[in-house]
């Protein structure tokens, strides 16, 4: 009674606690987190696709539409917050999700407009120059020609650099042009030209604006906030569930203890009963089992198809089974007591038996094929296995031998080979065997560097023989031809029949073309000898096509095809002759061969050396690794860069050997460094051909095995473009390397834009942003945008990023501001010989401009501030450039300082974001000065005071630096405000990601 009451109450309590403890569903959490991740990816891809379409790398909107749709769907899902969050957190997350949805709605609208305007713009940009060329190239009267040319030039200049000043120039030129053409017959043509010019003027700034707006939308940041609030909410729900779980555990424990006590009492009495019962039944079962086993063994022994011999320690036969008798002919009575030596065939020597006994006594067993002799004196092959049996003390007591007669298998094997590899009629090798021989012959010729000819021979006029005299005669003719061809073969050569009247001859070890042609002449001659197999005299001839290796350095299939093609040409040219495949190719390959052999020599002479360029973490101020770069110490040409010799051997096996040399050298170097206390990861470049070579991973594993101390610190760099040639294969190889503990990086990333789509499928751990983008990003806003796009993508896919081509302090600083901390480039250190690396690494210090911002972070919303700085630098650079090359000065010179791109930012977004900070106000003054000076320079130049203008350029640069300094101060202030908050956010983001 008491027991059932306690149990009922506990069950109720446990149920309640269980419900509370399990309220946080891991599935729901996983689903929701995954949606947020999908959202992040789709959103980043949308931005990238907009960019790709704007830059015309992609020319259709399918992917853009798909990613946008996907991110909107994911956002809808994200708005339904998991129920396990507490009410307050749920509301917070839902509010963030609504903000995000609004932003995405806005993005959706912008993308819709982008698509249609970008399409129109693209057409006009493409059509305008062509239409202008057509018009101006025709017969145009002078009074029209100048204004039209002016107009076209200004529009094209605007198309390259759409600023306000160029806009005004176009407007002026347009007016002038229209004025002149008012009554001119060419009015319609000009009108059409202006129509497209107008489209460019209208849509180019609009599309650029939309592109910037889309990329500047705060969706990524809102998503991050959403993620953060969700993470906090989830963690709290988790925590309270945890409490209930502990309580559940305690209650369950108490209940268990109580039940254990009850059961223990019951159990004690039952156990003594059960024990007695169990002992009896166990003994019975064991006996039955033993009997069964004996019966089983005896059945196996007697019914086995394989002969079995049991012998004692001295080797005398104790017992044999019926199969033994069937195979050897000896009855049981004849065999027992004798030594198995009685069936020895005498086919094997002493050594054979000695090795056999050594194996039996050493390893306990021996297995192999052996020839024995049966009672009737016949010798037959058997597959024999002998085991030594030892007792518990390890003393040898018996031998067991099991064998099978394999004479029939052997016979069948032989027949099958004949059928599969030889032509039934002529006994010549068939197509299958030919393929094998051809492959072997080819590698043999490669090894011995000799020529090989593949001759495709087709009989002329064989069909009439068949038709007139019947197949019987036809067959005999083929047999005759086969034996004639066999006659002229030398050792190593092959003649095969492909079927019908087609034969292929492989001639190996040829020294010259002359020798080759001689051999073929002989072939034609011997074929055309009269035949005696029919009453009437009969003659046939042959057409032969020849492909010669190495002139034709192709794979076996291609060689055969080339020979076939050449045979057709021989037929076309009138039969009874031969034709050799493509001679020009021959000459080309030979010259290329010279270059290659010089590089091959360099490898053999040890003229190559490895240089190392450091990679650093700018934020932490530490060296994180090195990239190994090959150099050629050429005895005449001095230090040769890889660009000057690697492309020559790109498609040659030599590059694989050089790649292997590089890996081996770098590993050895790492091992040496390890001794002097330097332990850095080193990356090496892997060429496409090397990566695709069949045994790349296997070879790599072997090399790594030689340097176990440093093996895991090797990293492979794969060119993005070579990874794209065969994405599936590249991804497989990267995966296999990962299993070896070797990580891979995608090199020169961004140069093949379509790769963004494939990034997901390539499991490379690291992305190296191509140096061309990094170099230009501080002066070209477009490149900055691309770098941002790549970084966003890398973050979404959770890959490491390293920037190549950091040449100045400013490059590094901007990268750090964009949250990209790893970098390499001449601004940090040039590639250096191995012996300088240790010293360099010990002495390297990051620039003070970097340490200064080490603990600071900028938000996505601050990106326009960074862009504005680039715009300003760009504007001044253009002005200086224009001045030096005596071209018109850029926009904004004549107008006030609010019209340049920097000014537009300053008076628009800048004010609304930062006007509360005193540092923001400090920028206005030097910026005004920059424009004042620019105007004066312009004026001086117009007045012919070139020297004065020149001297003012210095002043201009001083003021530019003042603007940049003031901007730096603002950036620092903004980052200091952000940073307190953001470090906390990062910790949470990191925690949820783990």
């Amino acid at each position, binding site marked *: 009674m008491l027991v059932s009451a306690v149990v009922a109450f506990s069950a109720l309590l446990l149920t309640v606690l269980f419900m509370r403890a399990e309220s946080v569903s891991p599935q729901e959490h996983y689903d929701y987190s995954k949606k947020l991740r999908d959202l992040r990816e789709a959103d980043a891809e949308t931005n990238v696709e907009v960019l790709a379409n704007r830059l015309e790398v992609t020319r*259709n909107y399918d992917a853009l*539409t798909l990613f946008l749709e996907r991110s909107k769907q994911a956002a809808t899902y994200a708005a339904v917050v998991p129920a396990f969050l507490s009410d307050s957190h749920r509301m917070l997350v839902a509010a963030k999700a609504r903000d995000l949805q609004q932003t995405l709605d806005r993005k959706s609208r912008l993308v819709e407009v982008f*698509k249609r305007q970008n*399409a*129109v713009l693209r*057409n006009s940009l493409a059509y305008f120059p062509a239409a202008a060329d057509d018009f101006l190239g025709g017969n145009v009267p002078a009074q029209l020609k100048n204004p039209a040319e002016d107009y076209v030039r200004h529009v094209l200049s605007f198309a390259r650099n759409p600023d306000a000043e160029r806009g005004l120039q176009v407007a002026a030129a347009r007016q002038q042009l229209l004025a002149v053409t008012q009554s001119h017959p060419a009015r319609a043509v000009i009108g*059409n030209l202006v*129509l497209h010019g107008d*489209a460019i003027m209208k849509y180019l700034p609009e599309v650029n604006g939309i592109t910037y707006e889309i990329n500047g939308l705060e969706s990524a940041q809102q998503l991050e906030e959403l993620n953060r609030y969700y993470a906090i909410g989830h963690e709290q729900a988790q925590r309270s569930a945890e409490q209930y779980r502990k309580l559940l555990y305690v209650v369950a424990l108490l209940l268990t203890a109580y039940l254990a006590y009850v059961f223990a009492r019951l159990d004690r009495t039952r156990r003594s009963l059960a024990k007695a019962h169990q002992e009896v039944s166990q003994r019975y079962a064991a006996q039955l089992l033993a009997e069964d086993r004996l019966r089983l063994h005896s059945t196996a022994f007697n019914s086995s198809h394989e002969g079995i011999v049991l012998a004692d320690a001295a080797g005398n036969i104790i017992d044999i089974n019926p199969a033994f008798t069937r195979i050897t002919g000896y009855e049981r009575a004849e065999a027992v007591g004798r030594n198995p030596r009685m069936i020895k065939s005498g086919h094997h020597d002493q050594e054979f038996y000695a090795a056999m006994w050594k194996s039996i006594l050493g390893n306990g067993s021996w297995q192999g094929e052996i020839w024995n002799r049966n009672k009737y004196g016949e010798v037959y092959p058997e597959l024999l296995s002998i085991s030594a049996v030892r007792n518990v003390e390890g003393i040898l007591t018996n031998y067991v031998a099991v064998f099978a007669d394999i004479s029939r298998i052997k016979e069948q094997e032989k027949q099958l080979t004949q059928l599969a590899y030889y032509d039934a009629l002529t006994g010549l090798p068939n197509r299958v065997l030919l393929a094998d021989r051809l492959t072997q012959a080819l590698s043999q010729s490669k090894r011995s560097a000799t020529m090989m000819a593949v001759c495709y021979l087709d009989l002329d006029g064989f069909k009439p023989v068949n038709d007139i005299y019947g197949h019987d005669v036809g067959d005999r003719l083929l047999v005759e031809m086969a034996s004639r061809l066999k006659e002229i073969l030398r050792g190593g050569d092959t003649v095969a029949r492909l079927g019908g009247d087609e034969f292929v001859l492989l001639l190996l070890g040829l020294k010259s073309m002359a020798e080759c042609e001689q051999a073929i002449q002989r072939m034609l001659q011997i074929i055309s000898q009269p035949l005696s197999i029919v009453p009437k005299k009969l003659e046939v001839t042959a057409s032969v096509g020849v492909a010669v290796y190495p002139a034709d350095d192709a794979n076996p299939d291609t060689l055969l095809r080339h020979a076939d093609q050449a045979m057709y040409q021989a037929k076309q040219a009138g039969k009874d002759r031969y034709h050799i495949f493509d001679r020009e190719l021959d000459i080309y390959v030979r010259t290329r061969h010279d270059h290659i052999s010089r590089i091959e020599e360099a490898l053999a002479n040890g003229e190559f050396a490895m240089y190392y360029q450091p990679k650093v973490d700018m934020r932490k101020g530490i060296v994180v690794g090195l990239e190994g770069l090959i150099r050629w110490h050429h005895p005449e040409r001095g230090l040769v860069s890889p660009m000057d010799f690697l492309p020559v051997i790109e498609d040659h096996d030599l590059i694989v050997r050089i790649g292997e040399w590089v890996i081996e050298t770098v590993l050895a170097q790492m091992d040496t460094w390890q001794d002097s206390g330097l332990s850095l990861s080193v990356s090496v470049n892997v060429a496409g051909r090397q990566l695709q070579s069949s045994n790349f991973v296997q070879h790599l594993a072997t090399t790594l095995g030689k340097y176990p101390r440093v093996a895991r610190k090797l990293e492979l760099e794969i060119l993005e473009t070579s990874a794209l040639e065969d994405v599936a294969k590249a991804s497989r190889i990267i995966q296999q390397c990962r299993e070896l503990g070797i990580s891979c990086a995608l090199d020169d990333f961004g140069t093949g834009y379509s790769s963004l789509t494939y990034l997901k499928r390539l499991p490379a751990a690291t992305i190296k942003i191509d140096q061309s983008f990094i170099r230009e990003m501080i002066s070209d806003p477009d490149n900055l945008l691309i770098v941002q796009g790549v970084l966003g993508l890398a973050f979404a896919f959770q890959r490491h990023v390293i920037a190549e081509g950091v040449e100045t302090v400013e490059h590094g600083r901007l990268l750090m501001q964009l949250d990209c901390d790893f970098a390499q480039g001449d601004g940090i250190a040039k590639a250096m010989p191995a012996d300088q690396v240790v010293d360099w690494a010990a002495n390297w210090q990051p620039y003070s401009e970097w340490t200064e911002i080490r603990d600071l972070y900028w938000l996505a919303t601050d990106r326009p501030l960074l862009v504005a700085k680039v715009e300003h630098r760009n504007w001044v650079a253009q002005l200086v450039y224009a001045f030096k090359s005596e071209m018109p000065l850029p926009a904004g010179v004549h107008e006030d300082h609010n019209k340049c791109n920097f000014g537009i930012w300053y008076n628009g977004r800048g004010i609304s974001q930062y006007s509360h900070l005193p540092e923001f106000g400090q920028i206005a003054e030097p910026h005004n000065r920059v424009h004042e000076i620019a105007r004066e320079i312009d004026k001086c130049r117009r007045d012919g005071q070139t020297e004065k203008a020149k001297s003012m350029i210095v002043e201009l640069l001083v003021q530019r630096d003042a603007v940049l300094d003031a901007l730096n101060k603002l950036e620092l202030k903004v980052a200091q405000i952000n940073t307190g908050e953001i470090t906390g956010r990062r910790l949470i983001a990191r925690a949820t990601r783990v």
Partner: protein
Amino acid sequence: MPILSVPTFPPAKVALGDKLFHEPRLSHDNSIACASCHDLAKGGTDQSRFSTGIKGALGDVNAPTVFNSGLSIAQFWDGRAKTLEEQAAGPVHNPIEMGSNWKEVIGKLLADKDYPALFELAYHDGITPANIADAIATFERTLLTPNSRFDRYLRGEKKALNDDELEGYRRFVNLGCASCHQGVGIGGNMFQRFGVMGDYFEGRQPGKADLGRFNVTGLEEDMHVFKVPSLRNVALTSPYFHDGSAKTLSEAVRVMGKYQLGKELSKKEVNLIVAFLHTLNGEWQGKVLHER
């Protein structure tokens, strides 16, 4: 521009959708079915300028093809329905099309001897507006027309297009048609203004249908903006444009050149492009759709 492949959908829903698609009882007087204006034997259209609804009422837009409609970014010329499901409800309720409503339709379907069982088979909750729309939409999603000669050309079958058609394709890209008519659907994934390079509506009083996407967004900048239609099977779906004003493909191409590209296309250019457009006829149920 990649290639279509036909996905598979639950057969019970597809079969039901097929039946509903041809069901005149979706209209008030049992005279008009979806298939009346989207005749699968006529390229998925009715090949008339405007469609005729119940009691002979004449519509105000040209009926777009139902083939490949599942690939489009949105439905109707002005994109007012985001999905095919949303679209299906439109004509049922439009007084000059089917002039009915869900309540009336469901009443008729319930009284039928087959429908209740068929719905039971495909859906757990029987005949509902959502399920009717879902079945029709699912059926429509199967109406893809792959393996046009152009698809085959893109897949590497270089002989699938003759010299003229190939030249037409080049003009199609270089003249700029492919700036809007791109992607899998060769159009259908964006909106564009009708009259980018000239006022198409000049000299006429635009009706409501002529306002285009403005009707959906209310934004001035969306005035006369329409969905860029897919050009797959375009040779079968005359007349052309939302107002059905172009009777022939040649005329449509000329108008597009003038108002969208700002170019007077030569007779030769028009002929080449038209030749190319004829290679876009795809296969349905394993047979090439033919021009009648």
